[in-house]
Every structure is written in C-alpha cells, then in structure tokens.
C-alpha cells in the first residue's frame, strides 16, 4: 500500500513541479515587462496595465483558471475551445492562467524594487554616457534583484502551494493524487502525507533563497 501511495503521489508531485517551474519561467520575465507598463510615462499604457493588474489580483486564481479553461469554448462556442479535450490542453491552460496571475504579482514586486533605487544611480550611469538599457541592466537590475529577494521568495513559496488549484480543471497534481485514495481505499493519510512533499520542497526553496541572499550580501546599498 505504502509503495503504491508514494508512486501515485510522486506522479502528482511531478505535475506540481511542472506547473511550478513553467510558471516561474513565464512569469518572471513577463512580470518585468508588466512592471515597465505600469511605470510607463505614456498614460494609456499605464492605465491599461494597471487595470489588468487590478483585475488579476482582485479575483481568485481559481476563478481565473475556470474562465481561461472553459471560457473560450463555453462563451464563443465549441469551435473556439482552444484547449482541446486532452490533458495537454488542460496543462497549457493551467500554465497560461498561472503565468498571467503570478506575472501580475511579480510586476508589483519589481516595480517596488525598481522605484526604490535612488535617482542618483540612474544619473551616475547617464553622465557616464551609458544608454538607458545599459543603465538598467548593468547598474539598476542587480540592485533591484538584491532588494526583491525576500518578497519574491514569499510569492514563490505561495506559488508552490497554489499549484494545488490546478485540480479544479482536472489536472492531476499531488493533492488530487492523495485525495483519490479516500475514494479507492478509504485511507485519508495519503492526503495528509502530501503536506510532507510541500514542506520538503518549500524547505529546499527557503535554503536556496537564503543562499542567494547570502551570495548578494557582499555589498550594502
């Protein structure tokens, strides 16, 4: 029994990890782009982006998952069901929803970090003849990274746990894997046991972030 449970949970956890890493891969750069939008000096862009961030942060991720997955097909007719009927479509839909959702949260963290860098840093780069992008990537970004590690680690640990929402559109992640044993054999411990997976993985992430923070601790400011 134990072995069957572990095998099953491992399978679910693999999906959890897949959602987690794909979301990070998409949301980290997308968040930066969104943060530029929300700091844009061109008002329409700024307000458009701010509205999107408001909507995405203002509604539950679970609802967003449902809308993104069922929306196209149910609203515009089955021929618009871009996700198809297979597992692949579900997985893609989950990633799309997670990436958009997390990119919006990340964008605000980036914005806070970028705006916390003193103007003198930009000006110092400018008077040395650097281009705007050189100033950003060579002078500002590293300082931003250092400042946003703590809030980022918070958000990323939340992401690990939020992946459990994917089951709402029938993606077989670890909570579902654990819960299925209640039906099949009446055992509830597999569901409780999933907590160990989350704890261990988040423990690992905490160590990694601690390491990065320490790595960046060689300078102050």
């Amino acid at each position, binding site marked *: 029994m134990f072995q069957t449970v572990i095998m099953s949970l491992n399978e679910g956890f693999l999906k959890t990890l897949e959602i987690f890493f794909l979301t990070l891969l998409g949301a980290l750069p997308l968040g930066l782009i969104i943060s530029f939008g929300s700091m844009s000096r061109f008002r329409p862009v700024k307000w458009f982006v701010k509205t999107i961030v408001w909507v995405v942060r203002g509604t539950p991720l679970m609802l967003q998952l449902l809308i993104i997955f069922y929306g196209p097909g149910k609203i515009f007719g089955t021929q618009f069901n871009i996700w198809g009927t297979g597992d692949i479509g579900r997985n893609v839909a989950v990633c799309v929803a997670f990436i958009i959702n997390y990119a919006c949260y990340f964008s605000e963290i980036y914005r806070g970090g970028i705006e916390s860098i003193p103007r003198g*840093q930009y000006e110092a780069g400018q008077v040395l003849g650097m281009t705007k992008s050189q100033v950003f990537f*060579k002078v500002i970004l590293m300082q931003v990274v250092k400042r946003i590690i703590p809030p980022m680690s918070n958000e990323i640990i939340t992401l690990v746990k939020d992946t459990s929402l994917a089951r709402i559109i029938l993606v077989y992640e670890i909570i579902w894997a654990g819960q299925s044993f209640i039906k099949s054999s009446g055992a509830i411990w597999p569901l409780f046991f999933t907590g160990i997976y989350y704890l261990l993985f988040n423990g690992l992430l905490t160590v990694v972030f601690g390491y990065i923070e320490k790595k960046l601790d060689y*300078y102050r400011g």
Partner: protein
Amino acid sequence: MTCLEIKNITKKFGDTKVLRGISFEMEKGEVIAIIGSSGSGKTTLLRCINFLEKCDTGSITVNGTEIYNAEKRDQYSDNYIRKSRLNFGMVFQSFNLFPQYDVLKNITLAPELMQIKRKMPDTEKKNIRRQIKEEAYELLKTVGLSEKAGAYPCELSGGQQQRVAIARALAMKPQILCFDEPTSALDPELTGEVLKAIKSLRDAGRTMIVVTHEMEFAKNVADRVIYMSDGIIEEIGTPQQIFSDAQSEKTRAFLQKSNYEF
C-alpha cells in the same frame, strides 16, 4: 582658447524660475568655482550643463561647436544627448558609486560599455579591456587609492568613495569636469583629501567647474569665482576680486554670512 560657452540659460520648475539667464565662458585649463547660498541655482546650472535637466532657453557651446540650443531641444535624440554628455564629467554630492561593483569595476564599467562592441573578435575585446584596466589603475593612483581597487564602495569612507567617483568620471576622458558640492556630504575631517585630489587635477591642467561651499578652497584653487544668487550670476571674477574686493552688496553679505574673514 574658449572651451565652454554658456549663453543665457534659463530653467523653470513649475512656476519657480531657478535659473534666470546665466551666461559665462571658460578657457581650457581654467578652474571655475561657483559659490552661493542654497537654492541659488548652482546645482541646477551644473545639471543643465550635463543634460540631466534640459534648460528652457539658452545654448551650450563646447570648443566652438554648439552642442545644445534650447530652441532645438525637441529635435535632439536620446543618443545625441548621450554623446554630448561625454564632453562633461560629473561628480555628485552623494558620490553615487555603483554599490554592487568593486572600485575597479566602477571605473571600468562605462568605458567598457562604450568601447567594446559585441561583434569584435575576442582578442580585440581582451586588449581593450586590458587597456581600460591599466588606465583605471593609473587613475586610482592619481586619486591615491591604488590599494583599494578590489574594495566595494560600502567598505570605503566617504572621502575615499568621492575620490573613486572622481576617477570614474575621469575614465570617460571628459573635456570639462563638473563637481556638485563634492565635499558637502563628507565629515569635516574627510573633506581635505577630496579637495586635495581636485587641486592636483588643477595642477595637471584639467578644466573644471566646482560648485562648493568651501570658501577657502574656492579662493585658493579657482582661477575665477562665480557668485550666484536667485538664479543669476551676481558677480564673477578672480578670487582676489570676489573675496577681497566684491563689487556687489549681495556678494559681500553672502561672504560675511559664510564667516569669511576679509
């Protein structure tokens, strides 16, 4: 030879006229000190010269070439402004070193970004890097910080940081070096080393504009002194003229308030 010609620069922030028509010329190798009380527009003037602000009227001419004219301000591309800036170096009151880089990298970063192109063969890149590094060590020597090349800004005193900032500005080989109150953020016992560094630059023939509250320094180091008040040049002249024989009542009042003994 006239190196810099400033003509009728004005600058408003909202309704506040910070600069109300500034004109002066300076010769190559000359050192001009700008003195005046807070809010008189000294810093804004320097920032306009460095294009950190765009002045509303007026023009800036370097070595006979007009590089900026406010009438054409909308026509200048970012790239043009960026290149024009390289005529000037700027040393800030608060140093503004890049905290994540060591002293050497602070100095070499901008020259490397400027000179190294992505498509260059690796050997050429290496040569340029080596040369920039050698020059950086040379500059560190002139500001007396050779042994600090590997230190991070947070490990340095304010005076040392400011001397690194001077070396960093020099690395871009500007024609004219501008200082915005370079010692105002320093503890009194640290101002001496920075002023000494600036003095040695004068002895090496650098063209410099120094906004300062150090009257003694302005008197001893500058070739000419500008006293600014309410956004205009109240008086300009040799240190002798300004400090011993000021014509303007305002200048005399300012110097007296600054506890300057005639």
